[in-house]
């Protein structure tokens, strides 16, 4: 029988379920589980921190300190990856403020983006972003929403060769331009790909996630809660009784476990303004993960509500 990507993934999920943890998922007591970045085998906690909207607080000192508190809880809980973009208003300087306030935690894995239609403006924008963060260099720079992707990817690959960035990638969101994403994943030497994937938006399962596993590309999942829409919608409804078997106490944790239990997912980047939520998100990366049947059950249950 010919092994298709779909059957390969289903087999991976079944094997992982038998071991109670998805394949390549490494966990320590009380810490979020980790997965290796395929291109380097560097291990990454599977829950990161997004900054879209939540960290765009301008120069407001009270709100900046709240963001720094979220970052502090994130690092204390074992998190590493913080993801931002020049598109996100003041998020970059706010991340930089938090890093400075926290004494530049060595665990930080800085994930940034280049977002400009001008091919020549890319390097200057990346340098401006680096200054906002206050880091010596970025761990990862991604071409945001595939904007001018050919030119920017060439720039990023040159930077990687020169050692001024460690990993390169591309991003999209909300299911846009998956054909082009797939084409780039097949033909370009990228380390990371970022797209939307959650309990109701499962288009990525058909092509992108299997292709990432096949090509050894790390996957960052954005919009795990559809920008709060899912958590707001489900918040007042009771969790199903069977969710207790997964050790979850909230819808956010259940939905995160659905995402994180896919073996091709490397890290999800939920965004939040609350310390209790960042702890809750990180705790979803520990403990038992749903097997294939439970994943289907979670998705069906949420879609039925």
């Amino acid at each position, binding site marked *: 029988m010919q092994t298709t990507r779909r059957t390969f993934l289903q087999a991976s999920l079944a094997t992982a379920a038998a071991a109670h943890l998805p394949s390549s998922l490494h966990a320590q007591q009380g810490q979020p589980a980790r997965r290796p970045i395929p291109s380097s085998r560097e291990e990454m906690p599977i829950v990161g921190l997004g900054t879209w*909207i*939540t960290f*765009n*607080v*301008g*120069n*407001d000192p*009270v*709100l900046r300190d709240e963001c720094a508190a979220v970052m502090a809880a994130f690092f204390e809980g074992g998190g590493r990856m913080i993801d931002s973009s020049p*598109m*996100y*208003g*003041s998020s970059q300087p706010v991340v930089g403020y938090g890093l400075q306030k926290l004494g530049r935690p060595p665990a930080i894995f800085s994930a940034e983006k280049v977002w400009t239609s001008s091919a020549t403006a890319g390097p200057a924008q990346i340098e401006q972003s680096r200054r906002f963060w206050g880091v010596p260099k970025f761990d990862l720079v991604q071409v945001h929403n595939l904007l001018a992707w050919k030119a920017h990817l060439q720039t990023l690959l040159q930077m990687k060769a020169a050692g001024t960035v460690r990993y390169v990638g591309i991003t999209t969101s*909300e*299911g*846009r*331009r998956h054909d082009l994403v797939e084409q780039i994943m097949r033909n370009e030497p990228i380390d990371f790909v970022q797209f939307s994937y959650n309990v109701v938006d499962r288009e990525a399962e058909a092509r992108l996630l299997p292709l990432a596993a096949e090509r050894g590309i790390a996957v960052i999942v954005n919009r795990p809660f559809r*920008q709060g829409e899912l958590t707001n919608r489900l918040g007042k409804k009771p969790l199903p009784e069977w969710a207790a078997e997964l050790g979850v106490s909230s819808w956010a944790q259940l939905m995160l476990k659905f995402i994180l239990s896919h073996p091709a997912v490397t890290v999800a980047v939920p965004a939040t*303004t609350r310390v209790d939520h960042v702890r809750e998100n990180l705790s979803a990366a520990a403990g038992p993960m749903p097997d294939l049947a439970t994943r289907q059950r979670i998705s069906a249950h949420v879609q039925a509500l």
Partner: protein
Amino acid sequence: MSEWWTYRAEDFLLFSPRVYWRMFETHNAALWPLHVVTLATGLLIILLITWRPGIWARWIVLILAVLWIFVGWSFLWNRYSSINWAAAYIALAFAVEAGLLLILSLRDGLAFDRRGPVAWTGYLILAFAIAGQPLLAPLQGRGWASSEVFGIAPDPTAIATLGVLLLARGGLVPWLLPIPVLWCLLSGITLRTMGEPQAWAPYAAVALAAAAWIWTIIRQRGSLPAA
């Protein structure tokens, strides 16, 4: 931007309602008690239009020009642009509106001699911008600290300008309309996307002003002699 039809207004909202309203709180705190002066200026504009519009017309327009450049610089450029990069470009549009008002002031080509329903609509819009808009924050439970005040915040400044322009007559008036109208529509979209009920305010101001202008145009055409 490819697949542009897949984007919604929500995709362009870069900040949360809490951050948006706190921006007004910090802006008000930084400029207080300038609010007293700008509100007094608004009342002065109403008085001058009703009292001796012929003499003071150019000064009314000059006051508006100063307020547009001030709001564009202090709020849009210095504050709003920190959470919305597009605000820097909108600040330039506010500067253009200020420039147009300044040209109008120098040319002295304006007459505040409208009467009837159109004039009353103008007064209504102007009165709402100066006296009504600041009440929306406490009425919606946000407290006075985040109130939007004429000459300090963009919405009441743009809405008041629509009111003044409804009361005015002159060849350059149509050139002054697009920027306040576009700002009101943009602000309405932003507020509606955030789920804020007060989105109706800028929308209603534009709708009332548009109805009044259409009424004026119909009446003018109706009064023309048949060819």
